[in-house]
């Protein structure tokens, strides 16, 4: 188990290296002179020189890369051009907001996706199954930012149930948090729930057709117990494998969703950085989120081996 975790972490190092190199390289994709683009048309020659010095663009490339990695290893992702604070600090400061909504959204996704998928599989080829399948298909086909706008019109403007935006920290007022976090979490969750429904349904159908389920049924165990105790444990496996994918879509979706609802998380931070061409923040945010996801994925894999005795007993793959 420990060996597996360590080997997975070691495997992630070259990928992290390439990912960081790509994040570093993004500034070189800017057509023409990066400093001119960042400074805008009104920037004087002195401003441009200042920008180049701040970003290290006046140094030779190998020096830039060396500085980038020296700083990176010390947790320094540069300084935001817009906010004037270190990128790492800005990200860490806002991460609780994004993490809170992500967890809320993840719980919604799992509850909704699992239950719909299981109901569909248990009513295979009946109308409930068809309804669940249609729900799942529509879920994966809607743009989430559009769904967010529709929900604002419906629940805030017309019904007046929830505020159109803003954010209240959970520690300050849990009810207020729930009121502000629900629409962002739901608009992020519906798509993922569609994906999870599809996977749960097909896995459940496969599990239900297996011998041990027939044995359990023929022993006279109640259907409730067959599903809850015998089938569910095996349905959880593929669910764990898509957790990484779901988290990845949740975090990248948060850029638009947090911007729409005015939630001060990492997503809105990146959204603002994009509109104001704050490249150190874009690079840092991209790198931070990707690295966090890589680690989360490793955690999911470790969890998977721990959950699945076949892999655990085999010493881990």
């Amino acid at each position: 188990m420990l060996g597996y975790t360590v080997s997975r972490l070691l495997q992630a190092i070259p990928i992290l290296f390439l990912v960081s190199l790509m994040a570093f390289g993004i500034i070189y994709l800017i057509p023409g002179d990066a400093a001119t683009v960042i400074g805008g048309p009104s920037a004087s020659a002195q401003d441009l020189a200042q920008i180049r010095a701040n970003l290290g663009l006046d140094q030779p490339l190998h020096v830039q890369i060396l500085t980038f990695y020296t700083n990176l290893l010390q947790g320094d992702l540069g300084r935001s051009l817009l906010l004037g604070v270190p990128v790492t600090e800005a990200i860490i400061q806002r991460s609780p907001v994004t993490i809170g909504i992500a967890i809320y959204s993840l719980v919604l996704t799992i509850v909704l996706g699992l239950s719909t998928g299981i109901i569909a599989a248990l009513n295979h080829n009946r109308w409930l199954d068809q309804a669940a399948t249609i729900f799942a298909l529509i879920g994966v086909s809607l743009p989430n930012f559009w769904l967010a706008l529709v929900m604002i019109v419906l629940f805030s403007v017309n019904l007046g149930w929830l505020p159109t935006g803003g954010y209240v920290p959970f520690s300050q007022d849990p009810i207020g948090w729930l009121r502000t976090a629900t629409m962002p979490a739901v608009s992020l969750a519906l798509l993922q729930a569609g994906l999870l429904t599809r996977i749960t349904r097909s896995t459940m159908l496969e599990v239900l057709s297996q011998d041990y389920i027939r044995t359990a049924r023929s022993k006279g165990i109640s259907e409730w117990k067959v599903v809850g105790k015998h089938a569910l444990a095996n349905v959880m496996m593929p669910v764990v494998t898509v957790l990484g994918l779901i988290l990845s879509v949740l975090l990248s979706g948060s850029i638009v969703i947090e911007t729409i609802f005015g939630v001060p998380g990492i997503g809105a931070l990146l959204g603002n950085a994009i509109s104001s061409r704050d490249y150190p923040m874009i690079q840092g945010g991209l790198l931070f989120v990707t690295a966090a996801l890589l680690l989360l994925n490793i955690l999911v894999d470790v969890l998977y081996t721990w959950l699945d005795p076949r892999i655990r007993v085999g010493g881990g793959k």
Partner: protein
Amino acid sequence: MTDLALTAPPRFARTRATLRRMLANRSFALGSLLFGFICIAALVGPLLVGIDPNALSIRDRFQPPSWQFLLGTDNLGRDMLSRVLYGARLSLGIGFAVIVLNAVFGVLLGALAGYYRRLDNILMRVADALMAFPAVLLAIGIAAALGPSAITAIVALAVVYIPRTARVVRASILVVRELDYVQAARASGATDARIITRHILPNCLAPLIVQLSFVFAYAILSEAVLSFLGLGSPPTVPSWGVLISEGRAYMREAAWLTMVPGVAIAITVLGLNLLGDGLRDVLDPRMKVEQG
């Protein structure tokens, strides 16, 4: 060998049989219907409507849908039907360009990685790194650097999805390259290029087509996100994402400005997803993996 060749059905009969199975598949039929409807609307619609999507008419601002303006008008009195139809051309055009680039480079890189084991390690590590980024986030990062334009959106989305396509192609090539008939072709002295193009690739087409239909759907959705953030096409030629972004400011008084393009995206993506599901069931029942 010769016996098999003699008993195998002629090519056209096989194609016909596959076509018949496709049409009998409900997902495929409904998906082609929806997607076909959107494609025809994009091609013919602007000609039928005949209204300039950028023609201003301050007198007709914020007209709700009516017989005169079927989908209403926006804050500058521009006809929404015409704007959505022209937007369809742009959104579908971008999606199409992305899958063409995916087909070309995904096949090229996937074939190189799958066939030449030495290249495999390098190519797949780079693909791993690119795929470690959340798809939309990477597209946003690239588009933010390149500057907003339709070409930017195409390049950014192609870079994001090509590694995923290359992986699908590579996986099926790894299976096919070990089959006896490929070994036979190699033994008879066929060149690598011939083996890949004539013997291996045609047998990897099914998963590729399925993958491309899903990439098309993701591209439409992601392009809308890019345009919404101001990183895609310019407002003069509005894609669906731009239309939603423009309508956002008037959500209270003119909800149709955001509804119409959103529904257009939903129908297109739904159609493509159904199409992909159907194609997968008919062409390649083994590949039941959800792609991200």
